[in-house]
């Protein structure tokens, strides 16, 4: 076991975990931040995307130890208090989610995308989403939501 500390959603946290613990399990099991999901075991689905030091990362593909000392942001820390992030607003407004399981990863991916590419066109958005599966929406409304968010951000 080893103590891993980091800053998550603005709070300093630490937990004693097995060295093989993945960041996603550290967040879900040790910190009870269950908004970050696990949808696969091959780093394909993106349900687990969080931000590590400001960049989108698949938290199922990073050991918790690798994120030691980092600044981590999860879906739970995205809204500013009661004020939703514009990407969250846009997903709701444009029906960019159905079952909601892919949604946290999609939103975290989209926030990172818009940070790097403020005004993406549809082709770019679709290309940028290649690491995220959604089985429910056919992506149509997710693309629409990200486009809409890019216009207000």
């Amino acid at each position: 076991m080893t103590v891993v500390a980091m800053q998550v959603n603005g709070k300093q946290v630490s937990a004693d975990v097995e060295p093989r613990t993945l960041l996603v399990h550290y967040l879900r099991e040790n910190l009870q931040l269950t908004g970050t999901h696990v949808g696969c075991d091959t780093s394909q689905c993106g349900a687990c995307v969080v931000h590590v030091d400001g960049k989108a990362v698949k938290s199922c593909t990073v050991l918790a130890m690798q994120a030691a000392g980092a600044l981590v942001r999860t879906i739970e820390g995205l809204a500013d208090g009661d004020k939703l992030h514009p990407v969250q607003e846009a997903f709701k407004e444009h029906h960019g989610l159905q079952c909601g399981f892919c949604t946290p990863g999609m939103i975290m991916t989209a926030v990172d995308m818009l940070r790097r590419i403020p005004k993406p066109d549809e082709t770019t958005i679709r290309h940028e989403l290649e690491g995220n599966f959604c089985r429910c929406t056919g992506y149509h409304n997710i693309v629409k939501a990200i486009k809409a968010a890019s216009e207000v951000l």
Partner: protein
Amino acid sequence: MNAIDAKKATGIGASVPRKEDFRFITGNGHYTDDICRPGQAYACFVRSPYAHATVDDIDFADALAAPGVILVLTGKDVAADGLGGLICGWLVHSKDGSPMKTGAHPVLALTHVRYVGDHVAVVIAETAAQARDAAELVDVSYGELASVTAVSGAQAPDAPQVHPEAPRNTCFEWELGDKAATEAAFNNAAKVVSLDIANNRLIPNAMEPRAAVGEYDKGTGVYTLYTTSQNPHVARLVLSAFVGVAPENKLRVIAPDVGGGFGSKIFIYSEETVCVWASKKVGRPVKWIADRSESFVSDAHGRDHQTHAELALDANGKMLGLRVKTKANLGAYLQLFSASVPTYLYATLLSGQYDLPAIYCEVDGVLTHTAPVDAYRGAGRPEATFVIERLVETAARELGEDPAEFRRKNFIRKFPHQTPVIMAYDVGDYEASLNEACRMIDYANFPQRRREAEARGMRRGIGFSAYIEACGIAPSAAVGSLGAGVGLWESAEVRVNPTGSVEVLTGAHSHGQGHETTFAQLVSDRLGIPIESVEIVHGDTDKVQFGMGTYGSRSGAVGMSAIQVALDKVIAKARKIAAHVLEAGEGDIVFENGHFTVAGTDRGLAFAELALQAYTGHKFPTSEIEPGLKETSFYDPTNFTFPAGTHIAEVEIDPGTGVVKVIKFVAVDDFGNIINPMIVEGQVHGGVAQGIGQALLENAVYDPDTGQLLSGSFMDYCMPRADDLPSFDVGVTVTAAPSNPLGLKGCGEAGAIGAPPAIINAITDALGVRDIAMPVTPERAWRAANGL
């Protein structure tokens, strides 16, 4: 906002943003994996690495001694505790009248394993990682046997046998329709068009893997199961009545937020059964979460048909008859709907939208050493639509007729229409959808677009699909006569609180469909109260009186109709109370926009005031009218509903690479009345994406020699990604369903039904080939484009 504006904004027909979204976009959903019970232990299943083998010995001494391990259980323990097997809910009969044949489906294998991923043992440990580590130490001695994974060859006398009870691996040889009349139609035909059609095997892959937490309360003897289910009450019924894990009154099943189902979360699987059963044995809650790799091998798969189909036509291109012979791969064991999907949910839709006087269909249900095949989005209806729409398109081309015109000529135009295959279509306007789809895709100018594409070296094609489906499943007596083990009604309870807010408890289960919003829209609209005052409760057998669950696009037509009937009862009682309170005759009470008024006066009561009166019981005779305001209903539909429409795909293929690009996809559907257009469109988008996935990308492949699943991860099974798909153009036409009080038909499966033939018809059009197999990978398209 006044009451009327409020109704417009949130009532029936409004695109109300979803009430459930807030928790999902903020990471506050509660899926099964998010549930953490005090002291919970973790289960890991030992699964068969062989497609077919004897289980000779299981040595788990090392596993038991491994760190953190609490218990290891095998099929022997299941048998010792007298648990029953897992069940199929539908009994079909062969042509000769004999009941279908299959072997028992044990919770954990006893003597044999019958597919890769079959359940052999379970290890329960303190942590998930310890359970997994220890599962690898379980030493199973298998005696490997020959296997068969495809329907072709499985029925040969010398083929490896899946179950001794089902000779030649034939579960049933079923038929539907009039054989003699169909033969006669073919004898009189001027032209016969035939195709051999494979409907590729798919893996549903809801993004949330299956999961379960079982918990036993020693004090009360009550078990609680949290699980990823589309139908928690059915799960409870099956677990108590058939598997015998716990009496029904001592078992609570909760299906919390569920991350998509698509049919794969209907069945009551081994894993949740074991979690409930083992929780008493270990005296602690037991949790199991599927890895995606486990989902691939052990979730119900879908489709997998081999079909020979022929269409008989007269000299004018009018359809005379349809003859279909299908072999359906059922996998190694039957699941809840396995027997009905390739029979009653398939052949009954073979008439499509066409006036087809004679149909005869034979279906062999074939057992193989593969994962069980059950309902997957559309369940039988996509397979039927694919058969008929591929044949119709091929016939039009061979007759040199325009595919739209050819369909028009053969459409059913008078309703009700009795097809030769059980279904009585009650209403529809197929030409309206076809015309609208042609307009939306600008069909008239397609030749110009094709020429323009050709100039760029691309092959462009257009493909139609005029689908029909039977939804709103289903009238209980009708499905009972066809072999269903249960009735397919739905239940609802409307509880009006003394403050005028309302809880609706529904037997439908939402796992992405947005019931918390659409059902609330109905209630808000009918009762004239703000949508915020309505709470939809679902997915808990301790709260909801009963329910058949959500599948087969039934929750609107059946589930909401149940709510509507309960609302009628609430309003009827409220009127009686209002008459007493307002000292007027009941006939003079008008209920409008949330107010009870005495006609022609300004005397009235708001809904919330009435609710309080109902609970105080001060102003009406409680000997005649019981206090309180709560009504229930068990609503049984009078017919199936028949959503139908036309989908048109336009594709471009690069003959140099074989890459198929869907340029445009138009879906025009008649779902009857619509509660929330935004949600309905979303359902179409998702369905079409899965349909395009089937046509272009997805394929579950077993190695024919070893029975290994070759497409067992997202690396090998090609799920549609955002850049594989276009944006979709969705339109609607409306003929209200006459069989339910809301006129709803259902919209959840249409996309997956309509899209595959539209795409394949477009590809064959682009390439000028008669047929091409799904999924049309770049390799297949490239070969076809280059005559290879």
